[in-house]
């Protein structure tokens, strides 16, 4: 149905929509994040959920204490190599559909600790990230912007066809291998199925 006919019908009091739109509208406005903070970015995440910034306006007021009830994991802060397997395990325990926001320079790339011995160089090496927020730490507005970006992404997801959402594709993996603690580093140091080093254009 084209947009013109739709608005014409709406003027006459007939509201038409698609199942996909209603489904995505509902999902996008009730994304429940996991109560999960790793470092200073978590303080900004807490601020974003409190009354001044009020993430509840977007349907994300209920931070769930259990991954089994959460839709969104906000990786807020430095992921140390000791913590990384636990982050992946929490992600694996979340039911589909699930999304990840990597918040702050550390969660994206290791940030100021990138050349250290104990910090993972970005959580996208182990779990698929939907939205990244740069900043050190990002302000609550940035988190809200990332959240709105995620809502837009959810609203545009297809329910059928080859480009359907990941959680509707039976072949797409829902769980990712949890790295183990090695003698010198995490084994494996990255998951090549979901992370390949980007090509640097010079």
């Amino acid at each position: 149905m084209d947009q013109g006919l739709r608005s014409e019908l709406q003027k006459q009091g007939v509201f038409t929509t698609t199942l996909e739109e209603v489904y995505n509208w509902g999902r996008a406005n009730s994304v429940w994040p996991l109560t999960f903070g790793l470092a200073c970015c978590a303080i900004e995440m807490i601020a974003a959920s409190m009354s001044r910034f009020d993430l509840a306006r977007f349907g994300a007021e209920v931070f769930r204490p259990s991954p089994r009830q959460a839709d969104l994991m906000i990786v807020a802060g430095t992921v140390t190599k000791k913590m990384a397997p636990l982050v992946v395990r929490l992600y694996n325990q979340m039911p589909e559909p699930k999304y990840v926001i990597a918040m702050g320079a550390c969660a994206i790339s290791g940030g100021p600790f990138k050349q250290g011995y104990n910090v993972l160089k970005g959580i996208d090496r182990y779990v698929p990230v939907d939205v990244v927020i740069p900043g050190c730490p990002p302000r609550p507005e940035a988190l809200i912007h990332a959240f709105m970006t995620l809502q837009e992404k959810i609203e545009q997801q297809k329910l059928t066809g080859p480009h359907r959402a990941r959680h509707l594709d039976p072949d797409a993996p829902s769980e990712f291998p949890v790295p183990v603690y090695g003698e010198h580093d995490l084994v494996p140091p990255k998951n090549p199925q979901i992370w390949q080093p980007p090509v640097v254009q010079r």
Partner: protein
Amino acid sequence: METLEQIKSRVEAAVAGAQLTVVPNDSPVAQPSLLVDNAHAVAVAGFLRDDPELQLDYCSNMTGVDWPEAELTEKIKVKQVVDGVEKEVEEVKKTLRPGCLEAVYHLYSMAKKHGPVILRLRTENRADKNHLPSLTPLWRGCEFQEREAYDLFGIVFDGHPDLRRILMWDEFKDHPMRKDYVEPDDYEYEPTPHDELVEKVKAHQAKEASV
């Protein structure tokens, strides 16, 4: 508070056989420290804690230092007779400093409100003789800090109640704060390599290309 020399002579009088050295500090801080031999370290530390004059009841900080083996060069002026004329000639003297690991304790007194007195303990070498006596039985606050020194420097504290790694995972084998620590080669993606990082990235790319 007494000077370190006074403390040293009193400790030597009280603890028989203790060998103490005052380590000078020529930096602007000018904070000298006491180097204690390992055999008498616990007795010396116990004296410092219980002595009514000092009462160093609080260990505020315990940390490790890694001294790798190094060749020290020193220029000294030597008088030499050249062609019957006495001249001052500069000579370069080379000395080999043996490597060791060091544990440094900063002691304060809450009762007397003075401090710090700095204690140093040295291991014999960096490889196999890396044992030191633990001072956790005297100052409980050292427990986690000695675990950290064990984790990051590889100093083994004898007499520690619970010597496990504290920051890195149990399976980890290296000691990252040592000078010769080699970090894992994960330089796949460095968009803005600079300084030493350029070399590391090049080495990684060469390795990737050869595989």
